[in-house]
């Protein structure tokens, strides 16, 4: 595995004020533009969005691929039987739909987070490949680093991504048995379960 002795995040953090670096990740600023430039250079080789499915509403095909890759690790199954895959549940498609009515500044934060996960987070963990090219174990390592990052806003970004993925996955009735959850309890007006 190709690793760097000094993380990209640490070097960037030393080069400019920390707040500005953090701001660049989720709020905007100089490095957001740099991140965008990196993204322009590294957008080849992504899967096409699923054919025949509902067209993506706000996510680009690159962003869609990143969400799908993150979801596959975040809800990786603890056992083989009875656990639908996040692809089968349509987590990335759900996230795309969920973001439609989100206020533009919040949506922009999510897009920047996805760009960070794909392009910079692997470098910060010592990998040259982008997130979607990494092996599952390496992807877990990158996500663990994000979850426990010393930068507060990256930890918050991880939590936001986790919330979106969990909503996209555990909304599906096929996952209820994992939790031993009986599902919604809506009664009709006569008091019986429809």
């Amino acid at each position, binding site marked *: 595995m190709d690793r760097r002795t000094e993380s990209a995040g640490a070097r960037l953090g030393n080069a400019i004020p920390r707040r500005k670096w953090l701001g660049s990740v989720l709020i905007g600023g100089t490095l957001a533009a740099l991140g965008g430039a990196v993204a322009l250079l590294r957008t080849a080789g992504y899967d096409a969005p699923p054919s025949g499915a509902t067209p993506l509403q706000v996510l680009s095909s690159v962003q869609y691929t990143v969400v799908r890759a993150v979801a596959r690790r975040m809800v990786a199954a603890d056992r083989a039987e009875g656990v639908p895959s996040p692809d089968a549940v349509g987590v990335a498609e*759900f996230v795309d739909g969920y973001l439609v*009515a989100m206020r533009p500044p919040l949506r922009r934060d999510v897009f920047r987070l996805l760009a960070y996960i794909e392009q910079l987070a692997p470098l910060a963990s010592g990998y040259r490949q982008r997130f979607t090219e990494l092996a599952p174990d390496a992807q877990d390592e990158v996500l663990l680093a994000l979850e426990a990052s010393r930068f*507060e806003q990256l930890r918050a970004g991880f939590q936001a991504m986790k919330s979106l993925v969990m909503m996209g996955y555990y909304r599906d009735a096929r996952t209820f048995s994992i939790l031993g959850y009986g599902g919604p309890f809506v009664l009709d007006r006569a008091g019986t379960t429809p």
Partner: protein
Amino acid sequence: MIIRGRELTADFEDSADAVVVGTGAGGGMALRELSRAGLKVIALEEGGYHVPTDFTQREEKMIPMLFQDRGARTTADFAIRVLMGRGVGGSTIHNTNLCKRTPGEILDQWARRFAVVGCSERDLAPVFEEVERDLSVSEIPEPQQNANNQVLARGVKALGFRGGPLRHNRVGCRESGFCELGCAYDAKQNVTKVLLPAAMAANEQTVVMSDVRATRIIHRQGAVAGVAGTAMNAAGKPIANITLKAKIVVLAASAVGSAALALASDLPDPYGRLGRGLRLHPGAAVAGFFDQRIDGVYGIPQSYECTELLDFAEQSDRRAWITTAFAHPIGAAASLPGFGAAHMALLRRYAHMAVLTAMVHDETEGHVTLEDGDPKLHYGIGEGDRDQLIGGLRACARILFAAGAREVVLASIPALRLTKPAEVDRITADVVGPHKIPLLSVHPMGTLCLGEDPKTSVVKSTGEHHAIRGLFVLDGSLFPTSIGVPPQISIYAFSRHLAKHAVERARG
């Protein structure tokens, strides 16, 4: 009459005696009181108008429908998730119906520190009695407390802690446990069920406009003149301008929304008080895992409390309130620590889990600003409040063990997993704090505070702005400090108590 702003096809102009901005506990009560007084009232609500059949008990649909920013609102540093209502009825649609009066000690402090007059415990007692009667407030008897609350009661009793049942405003409850996603059975005695019909019955001219975002309070020469707003379609896009002329404007759009509108309206603010004094009641949760099934998701939530660590004396070192905080599946999945296979393995114990929360009666003062027209919440939890949270979470862990939990888990990074009571002291500042553990607020208050001194307050003790005649604040923005208890019934009561001044002003 309900007008759905999303269905407007042209700009809308009208005149009224009063415009109420916001339709939660404060706005709903103001609407009823002003309508009862024979005034023509128009209420504006940013969110939609929903009926019980809309409440499907599905988190992925209800959270974006009923909460600001689709449930994603946070403090500016992303450290605290802030859940706030959006829609006709505001937070009364999705709260758990808790009704605890403003403590007398708090009201005494307001009189002493902020020169608030006419709002003592004695002044408010008959108001609370009336409001509680109107909303059918009653104690949840033990048999109706769900299994998660029975865990709390059992642990509290085993430890000899102070605790007891809570009072709710619910009638005809089916004990489904889905209160926080809107009541499909219309059992909540809330704004949409009780106050809106009363307002409409009292005055046929009463109008509620949903899907309208108030953008500016119109005022001239020290007097309010109306409200400007924008109607939005289902996707949140502006579709029509709204202009309402009025002698009275009541701000009741929450401690965040009211402050944001005040800031957007160039109100006189010589002492820089607009948006200041934000309190959040920040809290965090602790999960306990039991041998037996708990099924905490079902039954009446938050029906028992522990007040062992709570008193309301000024600068008290006991400022943590403990109750239950069971989450529906998506909320639980997002809150439990970690991800991947280990996370899923933990979720398999969901039915055997009980969850408690410690909420801090906070001294930290935050503030609200505007950025590109949207509110931004600035709040950095102080060390004193963090220590209160640590003490509260330790008590939660002790209670869970005393009730029989085999394991207690904190969603810190990395997760803290405890297997015996002696380990609760591992809950320290190293694992509790912003960005170390998920923090949640459901009780924003303050920001347009009450008091007779304009140097420390925005509105007088009557609720009227110090400098703008006819502009009233009648929601949780009024509170000069944290109140240390869920604010729903206090907001109803303060709005009921102060609305008479708005009526008097409207009558000239």
